[in-house]
């Protein structure tokens, strides 16, 4: 029981929320917000209580201190998303569906937790689907908006296609190894053509989740169309979870063909960073912009993965942790602007600093963190990622990556330029953000500022990642 406590707690609060929803009168639906956030906070806190780890269900489900940490990280991210989405949920259009939003998000989180903890491909597949299908409905959540519906369509169809391809790959893995349990697969997997095909198809399915080029094309459209909080959830939590399990599977299940997948990732990493950056450069919609930016970030994460070692694992987790805070910070500001004014174009941000200095500063910190500027966390995250790749001697790859960070710095600066440098006749007026938003942003800022300096965080992760690969 305790081994599976994350999932069980989440299921429990999902059920509680369902019950509350059933008993809430129709016009008091928004009352669920506070309990939802409190419960989530409770679960997040409870996640940190040390407990047993181990393997359940004959190896289908397994957890370790490292996996618990991943789940905790995801919990924190979801909590922030919860807090950030309050201002959006209170809008008229969403009023009736508040509890469903929470329930759906929680169910995807459960899926991710199972996915991370999976010990065989079946559980992995189910977790993946549970983490994807409800999000499609969330993407189409603003059902009165065409864009939202379009986002839903693109997400569900592309995800179905990708899971089809993934399944084809899995079937071949099963066919060639005779099992779907990770340890057995790991023991016998080799690099015959059919297995390479199987691996590539599996890889494509994962790459879809992490939105790696060329499997990323859905991301920008879905991010733009989906409600902004769902977008932030997609770009941060969903991607983070996929990265976690992807890293674990690569390091454990496919350890034998590491020489091959490293080359695959080498190619994909370069493609992803470059394409993500090239597209991000020209975006004017903030959500779309952040979508491409997060594609580029995924490319950087691959550098950590490719540094297949304890260091690689650590840096990936560390980076995702920082990335969660940074990206949610940026999305948080974009959310509040979008909800208060409906403006989502970067051009509308002109002169924003002069009307809303605190929000602008938050945005700046978040973007600098994404760009990897010291002394904030993003710098450490990115530096360590590159260090992981450099440890493998892949200096050329690192060089390409750092050159890409320059391009990324360029477009992050474009937003900062809009907010700080440009002057506008009609800037977004001053507005007061509500307490939830402030709390959410404060958590993000604290994370951005502290995690970098706080070496114990890094050392803690490092200690946990010992022996995972």
């Amino acid at each position: 029981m305790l081994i599976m406590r994350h999932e069980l707690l989440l299921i429990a609060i999902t059920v509680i929320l369902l019950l509350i929803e059933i008993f809430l009168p129709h016009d008091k639906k928004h009352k669920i917000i506070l309990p939802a956030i409190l419960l989530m906070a409770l679960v997040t806190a409870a996640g940190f209580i040390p407990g047993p780890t181990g393997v359940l269900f004959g190896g289908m489900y397994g957890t370790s201190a490292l996996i618990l940490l991943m789940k905790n990280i995801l919990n924190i991210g979801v909590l922030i998303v919860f807090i950030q989405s309050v201002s959006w949920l209170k809008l008229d259009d969403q009023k009736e569906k508040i509890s469903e939003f929470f329930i759906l998000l929680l169910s995807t989180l459960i899926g991710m937790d199972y996915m991370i903890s999976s010990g065989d491909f079946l559980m992995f597949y189910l977790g993946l689907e549970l983490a994807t299908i409800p999000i499609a409905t969330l993407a189409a959540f603003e059902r009165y908006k065409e864009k939202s519906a379009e986002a839903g369509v693109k997400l569900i169809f592309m995800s179905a296609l990708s899971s089809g391809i993934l399944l084809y790959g899995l079937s071949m893995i099963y066919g060639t190894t005779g099992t779907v349990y990770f340890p057995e697969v790991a023991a016998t997997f080799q690099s015959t053509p059919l297995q390479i095909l199987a691996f590539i198809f599996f890889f494509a399915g994962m790459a879809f989740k992490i939105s790696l080029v060329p499997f990323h094309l859905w991301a920008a459209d879905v991010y733009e169309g989906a409600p902004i909080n769902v977008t932030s959830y997609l770009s941060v939590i969903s991607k983070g979870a996929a990265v976690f399990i992807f890293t674990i599977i690569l390091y454990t299940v496919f350890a034998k063909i590491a020489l091959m997948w490293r080359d695959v990732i080498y190619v994909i990493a370069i493609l992803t960073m470059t394409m993500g950056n090239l597209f991000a450069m020209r975006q004017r919609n903030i959500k779309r912009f952040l979508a491409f930016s997060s594609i580029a970030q995924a490319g950087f994460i691959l550098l950590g993965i490719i540094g297949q070692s304890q260091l690689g694992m650590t840096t990936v987790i560390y980076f995702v942790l920082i990335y969660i805070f940074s990206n949610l910070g940026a999305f948080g500001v974009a959310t509040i602007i979008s909800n208060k004014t409906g403006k989502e174009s970067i051009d509308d941000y002109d002169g924003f600093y002069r009307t809303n200095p605190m929000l602008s500063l938050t945005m700046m910190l978040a973007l600098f963190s994404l760009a990897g500027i010291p002394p904030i966390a993003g710098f450490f995250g990115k530096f360590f990622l590159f260090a992981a790749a450099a440890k493998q001697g892949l200096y050329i790859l690192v060089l390409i990556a750092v050159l890409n960070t320059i391009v990324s710095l360029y477009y992050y600066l474009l937003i900062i330029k809009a907010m700080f440098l440009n002057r506008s006749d009609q800037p977004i007026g001053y507005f007061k953000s509500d307490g939830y938003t402030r709390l959410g942003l404060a958590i993000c800022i604290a994370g951005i500022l502290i995690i970098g300096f706080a070496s114990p965080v890094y050392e803690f992760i490092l200690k946990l990642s010992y022996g995972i690969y």
Partner: protein
Amino acid sequence: MFTYTVWIVLIPFFLFILIGFFGHKFKPLVSGVVGTSGLFASMALSYYTAYQYFFVVGKTGDVFGKIIGYNTVWLKLTEKLHIDLGVLLDPISVMMLIVITTVSFMVHLYSIGYMQGEKGYMRFFSMLSLFSFSMLGLVVATNIFQMYIFWELVGVSSYLLIGFYYTRDTAVAASKKAFIVTRFADLGFLIGILLLSFNTGTFDFLTLTDPNGVAITQGSGIMFLGLSTMTWSMIFIFMGGAGKSAMFPLHIWLPDAMEGPTPVSALIHAATMVVAGVYLVARMFPIFHFSAPVALDVVMCVGAFSSIFAAVIACTQYDIKRVLAYSTMSQIGLMMFALGVSGYGAEEGLGFMASMFHLFTHAFFKALLFLAAGAIIHAVHSNYMNDMGGLRKHLPITHITFLIACLSIAGIPPLAGFFSKDEILAAGHEKSMMLFILGLIISALTAFYMFRLYFSIFWGKQQQYHHTPHEAPKVMTIPLILLALGAVFAGFIPFSSFVTSDGKPFASHIDFAVAIPAVLVGVLGALTAMMFYMKETNIPETISRSLGGFYRAAFRKFYIDEIYLFITKKILFNYVSRPVAWFDRHIVDGSMNGISYVTNEVSTRIKGMQSGQLQQYAWIFVSGAIGLALAFIYLWTL
């Protein structure tokens, strides 16, 4: 015992600080008086030093030794090479101390009157002090780098003083030109120092110029283009000297430098700074003589050519200060020439002695000429001979002193110029007849243009003046008189018993075979000028017309200025700087911008990938997966 000599140098420095920073707190006159009295103190110390050096310490053995009065390490470069600041006393530096402090004092005194009412009075005095400081520092330098340091300082004070009237565009241009041309020459000096110091491992004059020292006996270095490194370094160093001493072809700044106030011209561009080049060669003379005879020949040729070249131009100019400037150039050319023909050792070094002697006497009469010219300009408010005439009645003191100076420079006995010039001609004569004749021609020309100047100013046609010209105030005439005394009597000093190439005194005598022709050509020149200019005649015009192109060329200073202008404005400015600037903006910067442009362009080109069409996405997805599979199944091998 000579530690106090450092104060000769430092007093002007403190004057500079004092007047420069606090001068504006008091009335202008105060700074003048303070400056002058400071210089007087310095002068007194110099005389005392000279007395002590020559008479109290005297000779050790039978030479005047080199004494380090004061020395301190200023900057350590390597273990061996360190820049020291100090005071080196030997016959030539002591002589220079006297010349500089005397002339400087005179000029200070004169300026109290001359600069009366000028805006920037205190600025003028502070800069004069700065100049005096730099010049004194230069001559007492114990090592070549100290010399270079003060060399540069001298240059900048000259720059500041030429550009004293900074609202006048010509003055600004002239100061700029002076600085840049001498700077260019200094580049040579610096390269020379680098070569020399690398070769010999020292900056120190004592080591460098010791004929038995390591520098001379071992340091000839490798050969380059047929000349030894030592020779090259000396040629380069001489380039610096030529720049400062306005030798051809680096002389172009000197005539323009007359844009500065006249006392400045007297001090810097006649008596002291411009002879720094001569002093430099004299200072390095043993090296020139022993290690780099070729360089010494260069010195001689440049000196001789400059001398005659300038003399010819001087005959055609109308601006009195310019005439004097070319005359200065010509005289310095003579000094260089004398050094060039000199040997080493007591009697052998006649040229050396002559050069120094001429430097000494020249300082008096040339300073006198300039100061007198200043008084004239002061009186008639014009620089042009054409605007003058018949001034002898209005300016009696000026007239007399000017005449004395003219006679002196023309080499009429028994004035100072006669003695020194005679020694130079004798030195030339010893070397070869050709050089002697050249010297005679120069002498004749000198006498001619000086008296041309004299007659057209003080005689010639009577001019109508706006105000009746009147004699300058006492504070200006006293220095004239004092300097005239110098110009008369300085020649009687037995120079060879004090200043010689190796410090060993010898007795010089007048060689009549040399002296008589010299005096004759001098008189001839003077008489010709008298004939041409004492009364208003049209002879000069006739002659100039008959000379035609040559005259025009001489009048336009042989187009050297134009050539320079061509090189700097056209070549350097238009064909180097401008293309560099263009290259930088368009090629170097363009390529940086090009990177961003290309990135942007690529970004725009590939936007079609994100077409919004679900099926296209799917197609890319599927073909991406298949492509990867293909690549890794068939291409990837390990």
